[in-house]
């Protein structure tokens, strides 16, 4: 286990380096620069601006300076937001995305697990069909449709919730539901499949035969083993929620990292774009690793190595 972790962690170093070099080169290949604006700059000013950010040096040197900074945890200054470092921007925006992501995940668990369980226990009867119908809807309706629909209903018709932004829990409710819907649906389906498999097992029959109440059978004997596939799904779900919140953040005016990523690419804010890409990549790698470790913890047949 320990050697597995060591090997995996070591192998992420070249991977991250490749991501840095790749994103650096792709950013520079795109035409236009961070200081192109509607108003042309006098050549002297342009040169000074470039000198200020080290953009006058040859590319390999810029890259090595950037990588050198990375080693010290320095992600460089933002080109677009004068006087702000990339690290500061990420430190301000990422917790917002993280909170939203965790809330969305909570939503997904809280709705997906009971839905799947009910569906499995009423297999092929109307609650099953209804639950799976809802799940199918959750998978099919994209978030840029669901978000505005929720706004229309809950903000403007029922006037129950604020329209978005950040500062209170109520503001994050709708974005979290929107972001979590797809995962809730997936969890419901996984839960249903898992529970169906467990319900037919000998030990459940034994439990019933012992005369346990249905409630006890379900909560003590069916739920826990049936949860295993859901737990293993949490890793990729967390990753996709954190990386995929860009659209939801826009719709609900949530000041997370998503809009910074998109705008940084459009503004040719090289350092901010690379910093965000790097963070997301590291996150994906870490979560994948976590999932691998979890798999082996949950299913002894999986050997790490």
């Amino acid at each position, binding site marked *: 286990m320990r050697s597995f972790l060591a090997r995996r962690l070591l192998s992420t170093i070249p991977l991250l380096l490749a991501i840095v070099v790749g994103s650096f080169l792709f950013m520079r290949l795109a035409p236009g*620069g961070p200081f192109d604006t509607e108003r042309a700059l006098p050549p002297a000013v342009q040169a000074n601006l470039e000198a200020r950010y080290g953009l006058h040096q040859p590319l390999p040197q810029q890259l090595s300076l950037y990588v050198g900074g990375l080693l010290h945890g320095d992600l460089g200054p933002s080109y677009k937001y004068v006087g702000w470092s990339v690290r500061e921007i990420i430190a301000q925006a990422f917790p917002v995305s993280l909170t939203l992501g965790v809330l969305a*995940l909570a939503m997904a668990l809280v709705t997906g697990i009971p839905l799947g369980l009910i569906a499995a226990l009423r297999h092929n009867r109307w609650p099953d069909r209804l639950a799976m119908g809802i799940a199918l809807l959750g998978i099919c309706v994209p978030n840029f449709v669901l978000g*505005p629909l929720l706004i229309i209903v809950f903000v403007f018709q029922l006037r129950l919730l604020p*329209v978005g932004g950040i*500062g209170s829990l109520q503001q994050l409710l709708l974005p979290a539901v929107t972001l979590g819907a797809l995962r809730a649906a997936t969890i419901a389906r996984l839960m249903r499949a898992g529970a169906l498999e467990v319900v037919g097992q000998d030990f459940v029959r034994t439990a019933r035969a012992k005369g346990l109440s249905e409630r006890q059978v379900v909560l003590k004997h069916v739920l826990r083993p049936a949860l295993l596939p859901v*737990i293993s799904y949490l890793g990729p779900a967390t990753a996709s929620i954190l990386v995929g919140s860009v*659209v939801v953040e826009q719709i609900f*005016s949530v000041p997370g990292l998503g809009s910074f990523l*998109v705008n940084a690419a459009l503004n040719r804010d090289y350092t901010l774009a690379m910093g965000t890409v790097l963070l997301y990549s590291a996150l994906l790698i870490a979560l994948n690793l976590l999932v691998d470790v979890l798999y082996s913890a949950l299913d002894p047949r999986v050997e790490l190595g």
Partner: protein
Amino acid sequence: MTLRNSDRTRFAAGAARAAGPAAAQRRARYRAVRLRAIATLRLIASLLAAALLCAGCGLHEDLADFTFLNREPETIDPGLVSDPNGGIIALNLWEGLTTRDPQTLAPAPGMARAWEVSADGRNYTFHLRRAAWSDGRRVTSADFHYAWTRLLEPATASKYAGILYPLEGARAFNAGQSRDPGQLGLRCPDDSTFVVRLESPTPYFLDLCALPSLLPVPRWAVEQQGDRWLRPGNIVTNGAFVLADWQLNRRMRLQRSPTYWNASAISLDVVDALPGDYINGNFNRYTSGVLDWVDGSGIPLAIVDQLRTRADFHSSPNLTTFFYRFNVTRPPLSDVRVRMALYHAVDAQAIVEHVTRGGQQPAHSLVPPGMPGYTEAQLAGYQPELARDLLAQAGFPDGRGFPTITLLFNTSESSKQIAEVVQQQWSKELGIHVELRNQEWKVFMATTRELDYDIARGNWTGDYLDPNTFLEIWSSGSGNNRTGFASAEYDSLIARAARTLEVARRMELLRRCEEIVTQRECIILPVYYFVETRLFDGARWQGLQPNLLGLLDLKMVRRTTAKASAAGAVGAVGAVGAVGGVGAVGAAAPAVASGRSR
């Protein structure tokens, strides 16, 4: 029969004994897995709880008296500010030598209580009022001297340094040709007197003094804090407000400054500037009362027809012209008759009526109306017959033999719709085919700068109330020209206008410049004059009257004493969902809009 826990363990153990060691192992392993699963779930649950707590923090914040939509600016540093959103904030934090009358925009006393101008129009003597910075220091002429020198300093790399080129020695100093700031025409005889000497009489100089770039800057704060001098806690201002909070893409909070010389006249205590890139989201925030005031970035084009009839919809002229640039170096556009033909074949009225729909007016000139003392050089507008004649004269009767040219625009829904209408009009009136090509903004800027286009979308916003701001950009050396047009006659006219003191004569020279750009050479095709569109409840707020320069002077804003209407209940017609794209991400978002009336 029910088994207690201990019984069950014994039962399991008995079963294990019966089934042999392999089964016992399997069961033990299963138990371990189950325990681990439970531990994992507990961990996740506690993480969730922590996150919920974290989301709840900062819950009961003070509400602002007034909130407005303001895109996140690049910076609010007076020396570096280059976008209107940064300008709005800067002008509310600092006060320049002059301010503007919010209605007429004429220069009014600011930090300077009075001034004298020499007979030759080149010397300005400003007398400063007794005023204090937010840290208690006195505002002196040295603060302006420092700020203006800093603006021009090559190392500052200010994008707006050119605005101060009328100052003696400024151009050479900014280009790094002279390194001595003593060469600049700035003198401080004492703390309350500031003397400025200009290169040539610049009739709009007092107008320039009210611009964000010429605001005073506290030297001590910049030198102590470096890049972080603008952060709340470090920032020192001399205007009506101080910056209390600044979180990127989240909020800028302005608070009334107790040290401002006219602090008692200000009604708002706390103002929030909330950023937002997503038009529909901004509109939703306005409709639900989060924002009291939104500009065009909160007004979705899809429902502008409904909005226009509402009392809280405000539309007013703005100092911006939308036009198309011709690349005059490329045939067939190098022929002025072709350019003229293309101009006369465009029905701008149809574009403002059916595409932009916000109250825009078709443009008959480059310089928009409203420049004091100036009459624009008018073009004849939509004349399809004339257009066909001109095209025939140029050798393309009925469009025969006309090569396929490309119309380039930056990626945006409205630019695309306008380009499609123009394409269709040219095809109908002239029988020529024009291809449309869109490029993302930064690419578009690079392409036009390198003259790698045939026809390209453009617009220009005046910085100050003088036609010069629209005309000097077509000089041959100007980086904003980007048409390939170069004329010694034009350059000398611009230079002569800059030296001319007499207003009527100067305006005449500038008008001749405009005639060259549009009537004679037709290097651009004016389409329409922009309007500022806003949503705010005029019955609830005073001092928000729109002006040509799109300024938002928070000093003037106050809540009316009349019964405040409920937040957002200004007869909202539409709660708009995802119409159009979410930046580059959801470009194919389907329209989900719901109209409803209250």
